[in-house]
């Protein structure tokens, strides 16, 4: 645990990629394979089920440190992280042990899942008593299932490939499914991960997907500057669907559906995993809800994601489809090195040979020049898509955000925007702990909404929370205003006198009976502080509702009539 805690510390302390890479290599070059296996699991984003509930962690740590609950809460407010708070309030350890990570996990942490609270309490007291603050912090993160550190999976891959002297692509492929909770990390699995390349590499894939190739956001519009991307004929252009990125894998008579987060979602979308592809086929695409020949808003897909069991009513009401846009494995061969245009033509053959409604070939967008393509892009919203994907016709299928062997650009439409008023603030977490960084925004509601209603007094209705988009300097400024204009404190939340207007951007909007404003927005974030606008000049709820997609608009506008004030 000491080595792993030190590694965590080093990764956490530096923002430099090279510094992180060095720290990873130092760690993996000297730890035992069993410990390395667990380290890979956690660094690659593996999340074991929470071993001990937050409630017990709080209770046991206050008991051990002899402080009352209110004082724990004060500490938590100042620290902004549960594990860190606990690590600091516990009394100093009486002795220190050096038990390796794998033993901690397999012999000490995982067995606690089936223990009684009394036994758990006893075990925790003794564990806490043998670790210094930094190790305690990491231990609690592992126990609570909240371990997270600023390294990308790709960087772990790179460190291992440099240590093992193997191509990063091979390590990345072998690491697919590594964090699957069904498989416990082990020395043996780690040894296979870094073993010399074998000719049977391909057979070891089981049902695993390939590492996803990710697109880069396009910063300069080719419509404004046609030179940016050169000849439009060198680009394969598709719509960018707003769904779940996934790979459909068919091998050995079985199929698997994997999300981009490498979660196995085969059972969630039976109409997609049930498509019978030829053996040895892997298709990359986007899962969407498909109605009347076009994609439904993301809100509909959300109704499917959260469900454990799928009733036939849900399946009928929200039918899913897989929009296929790339072919990664064909007739049992990895074809990711073949150029985009060729993969596309083989994909077309595969999709056309299977005629099922749940499998749709992603249509190509055809335009003679960038200007006319830009005009088509402006129709994105009415097509329920997020914009366009531009793929170099000669691109190989890369790993993650690589650019070396061809590139994918995402050319998204501009977000919806609204000018809203800051009404509540809450302190942030992590590096923003003790600063007010999480804000609730409101727009003006004119009160009575029907003709027969007398117009009531205008009031601010909260509609979104946002915490990203400001620089540290701006946060410091807003934090100071919040402290100065606080009206009331409710626990960690402060209500403030409305004085600041922000431009809020968001990706989508849908009616929502659960929100006071009657609408819910997707990915809200702050675009800028509108110092030039007075609170009175902020936008209204009616303006927000006018942004609802057509099928919703009428319903939302009528349902607000007669709703309680």
């Amino acid at each position, binding site marked *: 645990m000491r080595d792993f805690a030190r590694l965590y510390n080093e990764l*956490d302390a530096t923002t430099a990629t090279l510094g992180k890479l060095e720290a990873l290599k130092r760690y993996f070059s000297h730890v035992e394979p069993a410990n390395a296996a667990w380290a890979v699991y956690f660094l690659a984003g593996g999340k074991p089920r929470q071993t001990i509930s937050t409630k017990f962690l709080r209770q046991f740590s206050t008991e051990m440190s002899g402080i009352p609950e209110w004082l724990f809460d004060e500490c938590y407010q*100042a620290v902004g992280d549960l594990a860190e708070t606990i690590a600091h309030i516990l009394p100093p350890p009486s002795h220190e042990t050096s038990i390796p990570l794998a033993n901690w996990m397999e012999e000490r942490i995982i067995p606690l899942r089936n223990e009684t609270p009394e036994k758990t309490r006893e075990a925790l007291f003794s564990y806490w008593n043998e670790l210094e603050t930094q190790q305690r912090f990491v231990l609690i993160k592992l126990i609570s299932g909240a371990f997270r550190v600023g390294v990308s999976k790709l960087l772990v891959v790179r460190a291992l490939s440099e240590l093992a002297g193997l191509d990063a692509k091979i390590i990345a492929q072998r690491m697919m499914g590594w964090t699957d909770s069904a498989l416990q990390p082990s020395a043996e699995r780690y040894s296979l991960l870094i073993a010399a390349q074998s000719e049977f590499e391909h057979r070891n894939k089981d049902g695993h997907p390939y590492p996803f190739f990710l697109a880069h956001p396009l910063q300069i519009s080719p419509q404004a500057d046609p030179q940016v991307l050169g000849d439009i004929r060198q680009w394969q252009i598709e719509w960018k669907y707003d769904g779940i990125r996934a790979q459909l894998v068919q091998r050995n008579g079985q199929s698997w559906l994997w999300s981009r987060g490498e979660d196995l979602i085969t059972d969630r979308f039976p109409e997609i995993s049930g498509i019978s592809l030829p053996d040895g086929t892997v298709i990359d695409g986007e899962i969407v809800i498909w109605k009347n020949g076009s994609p439904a808003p993301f809100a509909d897909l959300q109704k499917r994601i959260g469900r454990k069991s799928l009733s036939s009513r849900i399946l009928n009401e929200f039918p899913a489809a897989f929009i296929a846009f790339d072919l990664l494995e064909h007739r049992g061969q990895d074809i990711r090195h073949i150029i985009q245009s060729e993969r596309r033509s083989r994909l077309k053959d595969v999709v056309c040979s299977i005629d099922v409604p749940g499998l749709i070939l992603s249509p190509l967008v055809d335009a003679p020049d960038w200007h006319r393509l830009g005009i088509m892009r402006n129709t994105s919203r009415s097509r329920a898509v997020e914009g366009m994907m531009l793929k170099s016709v000669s691109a190989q299928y890369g790993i993650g955000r690589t650019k070396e062997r061809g590139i994918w650009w995402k050319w998204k439409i501009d977000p919806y925007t609204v000018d809203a008023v800051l009404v509540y603030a809450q302190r942030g977490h992590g590096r923003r702990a003790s600063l007010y960084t999480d804000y609730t925004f409101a727009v003006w509601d004119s009160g009575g909404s029907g003709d027969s209603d007398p117009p009531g007094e205008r009031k601010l209705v909260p509609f979104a929370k946002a915490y990203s988009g400001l620089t*540290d300097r701006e946060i410091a400024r807003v934090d100071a205003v919040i402290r100065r204009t606080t009206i009331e404190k409710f626990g960690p939340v402060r209500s403030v006198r409305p004085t600041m207007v922000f431009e809020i951007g968001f990706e989508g909007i849908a009616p929502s009976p659960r929100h006071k404003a009657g609408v819910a927005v997707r990915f809200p974030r702050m675009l800028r502080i509108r110092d030039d606008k007075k609170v009175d000049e902020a936008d209204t709820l009616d303006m927000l509702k006018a942004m609802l997609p057509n099928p919703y608009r009428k319903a939302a506008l009528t349902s607000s009539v007669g709703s309680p004030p």
Partner: protein
Amino acid sequence: MAGPRRTWGVYMADLVVARKEGLFCEPGQFYIDPWQPVDRAIITHAHADHARPGHTHYLAALPGADILKSRLGDIQLETLAYGEHVIHNGVTVSFHPAGHVLGSAQVRLEYRGETWVVSGDYKLEPDGTCDSFETVPCDTFITESTFGLPIYRWQAASDIFKDINVWWRSNAEKGRASVLFCYAFGKAQRILNGIDNSIGPIICHGAAETLNRIYRNAGISLPDTLTVSDASSKAGFREALVIAPPSSAGSPWLRRFGDYSDAFASGWMLLRGARRRRAVDRGFVLSDHADWPGLMRAITATGAQRVIVTHGHVDVMVRWLRENSLDASAFETEYGTNEEDNAAENESVAFKESHA
């Protein structure tokens, strides 16, 4: 010298009260660390939030005299050695070491058999740059609470100096300067006094060097330090430890050190959030204030039945002390607005931006 003749009983209730100008001793007719200009001010130490300009008469502990004069200019200053006393309007006043910075003092006030102590800022762990904190028994103790939460528990400073040495040595071996941000008065000298000066040259920013001179004159042992103009070539910077005030971050003064590693030394560095906000390579947890166990030990040791809490986590401390059977209350003060306090911490959040 005779004070106003009024009913003594009124004064017996509270020897020190909070007024808009600052903490006021009514029978003595003087203020302690006032934040608005007054006639008579007793100063606990020379940090800017406690020692402000504009008072007519100043009284302070002798070891802090030169620092006060260098910061406040030509003031009318009387001094007392630690433990020496003076009677002012019937109130016996003496200074006792607070262990915070050179010349820092607790102020003991005795009047008609009752004793009050105003702590100023204090730290219990001894350090080589000032007299160690002395427990002064009293009836009422007015304490600071900058780090008044149980999460704050310091490691021994000697361990922190070791960590700084290791960091500096490893940078020096790679030919990178080590820029250590810390407050110029107190923290800088404590670090200079505690580190291993054989690792490489030490370069001090002018703000710290001014204080170094006063510390050296007071007989405090500090290693030789250079200013940037003393260093003959840029090559000399590469193995150097650079002591720099936080305000110098992102300044042209720092750019000359090229690709340096940076660190920040402060009690606030205990928390990951604060470390990440600073966005420096290392955070060294080194404070000139008492940690939570220190505050509790100091309060208990005075034997005071009544405790009044000033700047810091005031509400928390008051509630905790009350739950532990002490008569605790709070004074609103304007301390902690300058050096190591939260507000300053928040306002300096942006500091790395200009520094990137």
